[in-house]
């Protein structure tokens, strides 16, 4: 009995130790970034190894400097606008199409949906250059249009919304139709409210993806006026940059805040959305 007991507690101790060590590995780089920002600039690592924040005012001052002395604030607004417009477009266009594909029969439905689902298998590597060339021919380089529009027909978004729309009861649609509701009214007043959860999840995932998109803004936006946060962070880090580590880390921290905040608020939805893409995909 004692042997059994001690074996369990050894296992439990090891398990906790492992779990805590992994927590440290996962979180420490983020913690370290915060510490670098909130410490006096120029203090050598041997004196202050940045293991915890040592000077809040220094951090605040760095944030003030980056907003006033560089174009960071402008890039921040561009990134936010890019994300918000993409979310609005993906949700609207995707839900309109998902409503039809999930709930109605019409000639060509299977074929069209099949082609879109097939596109999920096509790697970005093959489309990015020609999509850039098209965007350039349209004269959309260095514009918000160029950033947003090519990404609006999200096959993943359609897939996800169709999964949820299928659960809308056909009876409710029939009942609404008998009450004299038009097609668009049924979409807006019946189907959309029932899919609110799916829409919120898709909005969050789209935000994460757009905020983190590095490659597309890098090639479409070549002028500083349209730089996104990702590009500015990349430039600050480039070998030719004159920025100090303090400025670079402040830029990094500010870029991390929106996704971290989103995660803390919506963690359940994010986790469910990702789990769904894996298990039902």
């Amino acid at each position, binding site marked *: 009995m004692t042997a059994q007991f001690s074996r369990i507690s050894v296992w439990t101790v090891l398990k906790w130790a492992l779990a805590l060590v992994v927590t440290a590995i996962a979180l420490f780089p983020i913690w370290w970034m915060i510490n670098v920002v909130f410490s006096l600039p120029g203090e050598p690592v041997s004196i202050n190894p940045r293991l915890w924040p040592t000077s809040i005012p220094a951090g605040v001052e760095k944030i003030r400097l980056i907003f006033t002395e560089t174009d960071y604030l402008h890039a921040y607004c561009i990134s936010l606008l890019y994300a918000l417009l993409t979310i609005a477009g993906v949700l609207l266009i995707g839900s309109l199409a998902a409503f039809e594909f999930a709930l109605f029969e*019409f000639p060509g439905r299977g074929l069209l949906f099949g082609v879109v689902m097939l596109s999920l298998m096509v790697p*970005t590597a093959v489309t990015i250059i020609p999509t850039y060339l098209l965007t350039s021919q349209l004269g959309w380089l260095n514009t918000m249009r160029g950033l947003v529009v090519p990404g609006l027909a999200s096959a993943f978004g359609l897939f996800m919304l169709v999964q949820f729309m299928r659960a809308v009861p056909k009876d409710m649609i029939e009942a609404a139709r008998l009450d004299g509701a038009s097609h668009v009214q049924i979409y807006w007043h019946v189907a959309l409210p029932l899919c609110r959860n799916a829409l919120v999840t898709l909005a969050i995932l789209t935000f994460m993806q757009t905020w983190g998109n*590095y490659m597309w803004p890098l*090639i479409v936006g070549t002028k500083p006026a349209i730089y996104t946060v990702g590009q500015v962070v990349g430039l600050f880090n480039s070998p030719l940059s004159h920025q100090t580590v303090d400025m670079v880390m402040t830029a990094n921290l500010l870029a991390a805040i929106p996704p971290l905040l989103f995660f803390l608020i919506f963690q359940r939805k994010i986790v469910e959305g990702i789990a769904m893409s894996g298990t039902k995909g």
Partner: protein
Amino acid sequence: MPLRRLLPHYLMIAPFMILFAVFFLYPILSGLYYSFHAWNGVTKPEYLGFANYQKIVLSRDFATAMRNLLTYVAITVPLGVLVALGLALLVDSFVGRWANFFRNAYFMPVVLPAFLAATIWRWIYAPNFGLLNMIIGWFGAQSINFLNDTGTMLYALIAVDVWVSAGFNMIIILAGLKEIPAELYEAARLDGANKRQQIVHITIPMLGPVLFFVVTYGLISAMQVFDKPWLLTGSSFTSYGGRRNALLFPVMDMMGRAFGGVRFGEAAAYGFLLTLAIVLLTAAMFGLRRLKGWA
């Protein structure tokens, strides 16, 4: 059905389908066309036949990029999935609040944009200021320039990669774990199976389809790796790949040919070559799945 009845359906899917056709189908077709032409984006495209493809396959950068990619994929995908599986089992062994806490903590790096993970780690790896060299210093060892030493660069990238992707795969595996019926464990326990035996004989086989998805998806994204090596090496379109091209990967090579060399036809051809490799690999994975009878 009369057209009048069908029209609303087509109108509702029209915005999606038009954008899909213009920004997905057309680029693929036009890309195929460009891949057989020399084109700088300004003058008239000039037909070359398969010359672009030939030029890429014979180029030294292509060989380097493919060699790097092979090593990278062969390590990062199995390692990433193993770590994710371990994390999922670890989180699953806790209950309630702590299970949630650890799951969220391990997931946190996934939430950060990849460009951010790369830039934070670039400083962790830095020779003078960096955290890692500080820790090495405590043990009295010589400072290592992780991102400029051709012997360590690839492994430095893999570490970042696992740090970022493990949490993502963990979530998917955790969802798979939840779907395994509890009766199976119950029965195994009654038959006297211990924890380890339960994991080997129930958990892993039952996770088959989920692990297959995680590995296949991991392979496809690893083959297109771009942000992380690009930023870790501080690349630009005129100079990329890091010291001695030790962190040169196919998508970087493709982007360099397009925007550094202004050879769009060649870059388009590169995209198709890489896609061919991805399709072959995915087909092999599905073939293996059928052979082994998973799912």
